[in-house]
């Protein structure tokens, strides 16, 4: 289905409401980060990736690997929307014996890799992209990293490999909400300038407003940015985006709204929906 810009924007709001609903139901979840990255996932699955329930076993499908696995709630609501599983499954989120646990696993239809430990997505994505090159296949590999996981050294090891093997079928996206559990990235371990670092490693880098679906659509549909280079999208996002009292607040990293907070958040999102 081809979505209009308005429909795409509305879809993000719907996803945000669902993220909150299931986090409240589970009494657990990474609220702030899921709200910051949901526009990226919306655009990837609805506008960019050649993957869905029908072709998920195809060796030629595009791959999406979520390195920031803790924001799995965002992935779950999108996968449910794409028909990988019934949305009602998410009522079991983080419940005893549920497959829908707090990090992605392949037990959930649509998940490519088990992630959760940070700094793992980029090496696996690089290996998968390298396999495509070796096999002369055209599929692409996308991976989403949190900005807080950039100090993991394995990211930089993989950044070298991706450039060395000219993996222009690889696109890494950084959900650059600038906050992590202890405080700002700058306070915890300053990783700026991210763009210059990756460029010096041999990547082609673009910045984008990571909460603007139209801007995301444009940039993600132009990869590779340069032939022979892996692509990095630094998506500038707002942690807790869409709910005024959650935005840019570290306490919502894995904060769970109470009943009143939930109702207030949904009312805000409904208001935003009316104004799209």
């Amino acid at each position, binding site marked *: 289905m081809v979505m209009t810009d308005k429909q795409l924007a509305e879809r993000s709001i719907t996803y945000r409401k669902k993220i909150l609903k299931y986090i409240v139901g589970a009494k657990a979840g990474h609220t702030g980060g899921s709200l910051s990255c949901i526009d990226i996932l919306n655009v990837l699955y609805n506008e960019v990736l050649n993957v869905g329930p029908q072709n998920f076993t195809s060796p030629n499908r595009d791959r999406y690997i979520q390195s920031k696995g803790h924001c799995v709630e965002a992935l779950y609501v999108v996968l449910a929307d794409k028909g990988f599983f019934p949305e009602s499954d998410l009522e079991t989120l983080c419940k005893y014996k549920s497959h829908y646990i707090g990090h992605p696993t392949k037990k959930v239809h649509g998940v490519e890799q088990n992630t959760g430990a940070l700094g*793992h997505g980029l090496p696996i994505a690089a*290996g998968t992209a390298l*396999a495509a090159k*070796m096999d002369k296949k055209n599929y692409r590999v996308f991976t989403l990293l949190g900005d807080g996981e950039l100090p993991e050294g394995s990211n930089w090891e993989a950044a070298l*490999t991706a450039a060395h093997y000219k993996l222009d079928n690889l696109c890494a996206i950084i959900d650059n909400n600038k906050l992590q559990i202890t405080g700002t990235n700058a306070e915890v371990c300053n990783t700026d300038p991210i763009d210059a670092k990756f460029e010096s490693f041999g990547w082609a880098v673009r910045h984008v407003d990571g909460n603007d679906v139209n801007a995301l659509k444009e940039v993600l549909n132009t990869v590779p940015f340069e032939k022979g280079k892996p692509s990095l999208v630094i998506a500038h996002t707002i942690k807790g985006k869409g709910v005024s009292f959650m935005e840019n607040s570290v306490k919502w990293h894995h904060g769970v709204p109470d009943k009143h907070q939930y109702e207030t958040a949904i009312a805000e999102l409904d208001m935003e929906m009316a104004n799209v």
Partner: protein
Amino acid sequence: MGAVIENNTINGKPNQDVFSAALLELAEKDRNIVVVTSDSRGSGKLVAYGQKLPEQIVEIGIAEQNLVGVAAGLASAGKKTFAVSPACFLTARALEQIKNDVCYSDNPVRLIGISAGVSYGALGSTHHSLHDFAVLRAINNITIVAPADNFETTEAVKLAVKLDKPLYLRFGKKAMPLLTDDEHNGFEFGKGRVIKNGNDITIIATGETVYPALQGAEKLAQQGINATVVSMHTIKPLDAELILQLAKDTGAILTVEEHSVNGGLGEACASLLLQNNYNKPFKIMGIPDEYTVTGSQTEIFDHYGLSADGIAQAVLNLLQT
């Protein structure tokens, strides 16, 4: 079956050499096989492989975490992936990648730990892998194999290609003798190979300690003590059926390994036996919980009694208990 031990003559090659030759032969026929190395093609004896099959080798550089992560990605896309790196680095620095990217995600990477145990004897503890069995035994969904001789190594490589599940295979640099003239008693992951039969004691050894165990058994035979010697090449899954049968059939059990006495083959056997009410003499031989003396692999083996004489003496001591 009869043991081929003639005046301690080494009639084989290093298992590492045999591994690379066997893999090259298989990879020439199966273009989906790919080797991933961390600046380790020289020590892995893969220079010829790289020259003949440059499209089937991926050089990562010295970055073991990335080696395993990239290997997991390749394996997930259907490549028959062998990640080759010194055992000491592969199973310590990249342990989280092994646990998550290979085992938990069930990506069928064949992890090849070269120069394992104390093969890099004089280089010190940074280069020893005496922890690998222990840490990998505690991780679900991985087969752990330490072949003893060239025959077992060749068979292990063939099976590794077919297994299509996470696997750890480790071996060393030293030339190894062929342990038995009976290659027809087969090789299968998870099934120990009885190299010699005897009723007095069972010596369960693995990897490069099987040879001195067999030599020790030959010495004991001259004194009228008859030992069964098992090459327990697969540490996990352990051949419980064989061990429990030999526990009944023989008078004691001694385990021998090129690994810490903590958490390896010996403790795996001890756990099995104790939970099956074993009450005969039992001892674990390996490297004690200390930073090892340094020297060649043979000198380190001698120092800790992992030699023919040391193992024979340990058997005598055990049978007196």
